[in-house]
């Protein structure tokens, strides 16, 4: 009986550890507490922004108006309302095709957003706005 008992006890311990692991919340990736108050970037979206938007919308840019209107890397510090407002503005400029601006594109036509990029950014901005509004 004794060896069986020990075996059962050990088996019980192993099973118990499985249960403990299953209850632990996933810490890889997003922090669920933050998820509804901050805009999240996917790698694809981040790449588009880095290539086509960050040139003007960063704290060291020459364009004062662009700097004032939006700085991508400072978004997380803004209020929920301001972040929602930015997502809506992104959607509006994508709809109108007004960003990057024509004047800028005249010398840098490669910076124009492709149809796929517009679609991706639109879906992303919509999803973030909806999530923050819940």
């Amino acid at each position, binding site marked *: 009986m004794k060896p069986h008992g020990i075996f059962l006890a050990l088996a019980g311990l192993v099973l118990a550890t499985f249960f403990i692991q299953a209850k632990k919340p996933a810490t890889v990736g997003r922090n669920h507490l933050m998820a509804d108050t901050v805009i999240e970037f996917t790698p694809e979206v981040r790449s588009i922004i880095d290539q086509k938007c960050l040139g003007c919308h960063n704290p060291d840019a020459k364009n004062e108006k662009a700097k004032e209107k939006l700085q991508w890397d400072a978004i997380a510090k803004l209020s929920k309302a*301001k972040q929602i407002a930015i997502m809506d503005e992104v*959607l509006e400029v994508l709809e109108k095709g007004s960003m990057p601006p024509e004047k800028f594109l005249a010398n840098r036509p490669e910076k124009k957003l492709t149809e796929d990029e517009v679609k991706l950014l639109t879906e992303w901005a919509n999803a973030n706005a909806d999530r923050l*509004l819940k």
Partner: protein
Amino acid sequence: MKRIGKFLAAAVLVIMIGIQFIPSNIPENKTDNPDDIIESGVVSEEVAIILKTSCYDCHSNQTKLPWYSKIAPVSWLIAKDMNEGREELNFSEWGNYPKRRLIKKLEGISEEVGEEEMPLPIYTIMHGEAKLSADQRKLIVEWTKNETNRILEN
């Protein structure tokens, strides 16, 4: 010299008359605005009065057009301000804006009014009653914050 003077005067007159025939592009007013913010009842009487007096001429479908709005080139400036104003923010369409747009517009109003950029000085020169006092600005900014919170909580 007198001849040149007369000629120039005549030329100016011809130009002034001629430009009256260029269409001014002043947008139309609408008397029926079911989505109007004041109609919806979300603003207090105080806020409604400020909106109507200081904002509605550019930011609604109910612009009060003075006699000089029919005379070019003033009519062109008025048309530009009205068109841009309505496009940027139209209180008559407030009920049509999705929540996220409302939040954006409220942020914009808070900034522009708080920083005294709005109403435009060129407008308040002609419309003294539209000038906003510090208290009125404070009221509007407070209203935008409260309304934003109300929208976020619903």
